[in-house]
């Protein structure tokens, strides 16, 4: 049995039945990492000794007949933007190449409390800025289905490692598509949560009015299990409200009979490839067979999403990254510096990569005196209209289904020199983020070259349980999640 291809739920059952130990699960992942990561470039840090120690602790509990939780002893890889106490956390930036955080992020602390096994930290676009991981100082993570293609970004190492059987699950961050896009490109499940559903404490901020955290897994059920562990209010993150966390697994077998699924025409417009449209339409046919009602609709503001994002996000990013001044943490420049200002400039110019500098420049422009009303504030007003448009839609339908991206994964290098083309890869992921909606990326087949296709299910605020229910219904009716890349 190939242990590394099990789902979290299957691994948990096997642990309880003593079919295998947590150490065996962990060694299976470590073996897969050793066999495939030279090719895929997902791991920035492998924490082998820690993982084996954590696994043995769980195994001892099982041997002694103590109960174990569903995530206990199941190995995971974390995006290298989550602070992990005592373990390097680089944000894939030269700025933080030597940074070892003295405290733990809330999300990973909650997983630690559940008894998780940490295999290591995985690659991302520098400070989560990109759609391909090509902006990482460590180079791109590649697509396990065909390494000539990108894994997607920014949570590319997370998606690729889960798709490649290197880890059972990963946590990613999604600001304007950074969980859903790589999940779709890599053929795995990715959950972007409602803004504020999961604490961001201890995760390096990108664009604070957009940033979310969520799981990347091989099945919808696994996404529900991981989300259950990390969701909820956190006194350390004031954007997490006191909204009850429901059971995310209880309705997974409930089906979609009688549910209304809205299909916005704008997500199938020009620029969306025929193979993507065909795959999503086939998935919609499946939903019809399962008893859902398909409701064609229009969301005319969709086309403004990318512009809203590429004004507000750089503004917030440039503000957040202002804290990287090389005083409390960060890159240490060599040579002589005249004064503090000179030091700041040297730290930042040497520490940040080209895409980060570009976004800081855009952000500085849109927030500077004389420009902020025409750019930043106008974009935040446009965003209010987008939020209202989604709210109207959810009066008529229960969820929306649409492609995640206009295309399948693109070739390494294809968009690397054209920032705007790279930004448009997220055109269909951004509008849901603008409104802070939960959205689940689900695999739905492969194109003629064997690259994964996917769709996303968007729901109203706090409707994660419903979105997962809808995703699970499709997964239970199809076999895509059982296919794995071969190496």
């Amino acid at each position, binding site marked *: 049995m190939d242990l590394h291809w099990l789902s979290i739920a299957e691994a948990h059952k096997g642990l309880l039945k003593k079919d295998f130990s947590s150490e065996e699960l962990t060694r299976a992942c470590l073996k897969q990492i050793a066999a495939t990561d030279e090719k895929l470039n997902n791991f920035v840090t492998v924490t082998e000794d820690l993982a084996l120690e954590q696994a043995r602790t769980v195994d001892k509990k099982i041997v002694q007949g103590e109960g174990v939780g569903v995530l206990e002893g199941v190995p995971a890889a974390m995006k290298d933007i989550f602070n992990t106490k005592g373990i390097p956390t680089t944000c894939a930036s030269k700025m933080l190449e030597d940074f070892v955080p003295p405290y733990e992020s809330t999300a990973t602390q909650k997983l630690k409390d559940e008894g998780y096994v940490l295999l290591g930290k995985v690659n991302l676009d520098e400070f989560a800025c990109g759609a391909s991981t090509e902006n990482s100082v460590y180079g791109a993570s590649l697509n396990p289905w065909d390494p000539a293609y990108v894994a997607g970004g920014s949570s590319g190492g997370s998606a690729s490692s889960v798709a490649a059987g290197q880890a059972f699950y990963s946590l990613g961050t999604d600001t304007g598509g950074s969980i859903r896009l790589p999940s779709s490109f890599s053929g795995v499940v990715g959950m972007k949560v409602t803004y504020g559903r999961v604490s961001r404490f201890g995760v390096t901020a990108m664009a604070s009015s957009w940033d979310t955290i969520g799981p990347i897994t091989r099945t919808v059920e696994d996404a529900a299990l991981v989300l259950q562990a990390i969701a909820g209010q956190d006194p350390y993150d004031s954007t997490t409200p006191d909204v009850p966390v429901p059971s995310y697994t209880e309705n997974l077998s409930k089906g979609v009979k009688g549910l209304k699924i809205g299909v916005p025409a704008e997500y199938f417009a020009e620029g969306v490839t025929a193979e993507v449209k065909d795959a999503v339409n086939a998935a919609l046919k499946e939903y019809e067979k399962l008893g859902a009602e398909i409701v064609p609709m229009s969301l005319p503001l969709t086309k403004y999403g990318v512009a809203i994002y590429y004004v507000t996000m750089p503004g917030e990013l440039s503000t957040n990254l202002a804290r990287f001044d090389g005083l409390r943490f960060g890159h240490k420049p060599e040579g002589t510096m005249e004064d503090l200002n000179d030091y700041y400039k040297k730290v930042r110019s040497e520490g940040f990569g080209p895409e980060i500098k570009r976004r800081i420049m855009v952000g500085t422009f849109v927030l500077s005196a004389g420009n902020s009303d025409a750019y930043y504030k106008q974009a935040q007003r446009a*965003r209010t209209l987008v939020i209202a448009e989604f709210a109207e839609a959810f009066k008529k339908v229960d969820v929306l289904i649409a492609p995640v991206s206009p295309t399948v994964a693109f070739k390494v290098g294809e968009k690397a020199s054209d920032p705007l083309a790279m930004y448009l890869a997220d055109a269909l992921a951004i509008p849901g983020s603008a409104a802070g909606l939960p959205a689940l990326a689900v695999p739905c087949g492969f194109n003629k070259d064997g690259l994964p296709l996917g769709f996303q299910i968007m729901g109203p605020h706090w409707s994660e349980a419903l979105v997962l229910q809808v995703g699970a219904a499709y997964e239970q009716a199809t076999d895509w999640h059982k296919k794995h890349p071969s190496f």
Partner: protein
Amino acid sequence: MKLSKEQIEKLAQLARLTLTEEEKARYSTQLTSILDYVEILKELDTKGVAETSQVTGLVNVTRPDEIGKTLATPDELLDCSPLPKTEHQIRVKRIL
């Protein structure tokens, strides 16, 4: 709107970045194309529309002014600094 070299230099100064001549030229072209793209937002009539600042409607979240549990000691935090420390303080370059 085309960004001039002088505008690029001013932005870089505000952002505390030193750019090479090659970077200035590249960012001038790329920023211009990004700003041209976002012009599309001017089509929208947003008169009387409030700016979004918080998508789920939270306002003014406060907590009692009490010291909670400590996640890291002052010395652990100081250890993160790449600069020399004197008496639990970070030594920086001169300001003036």
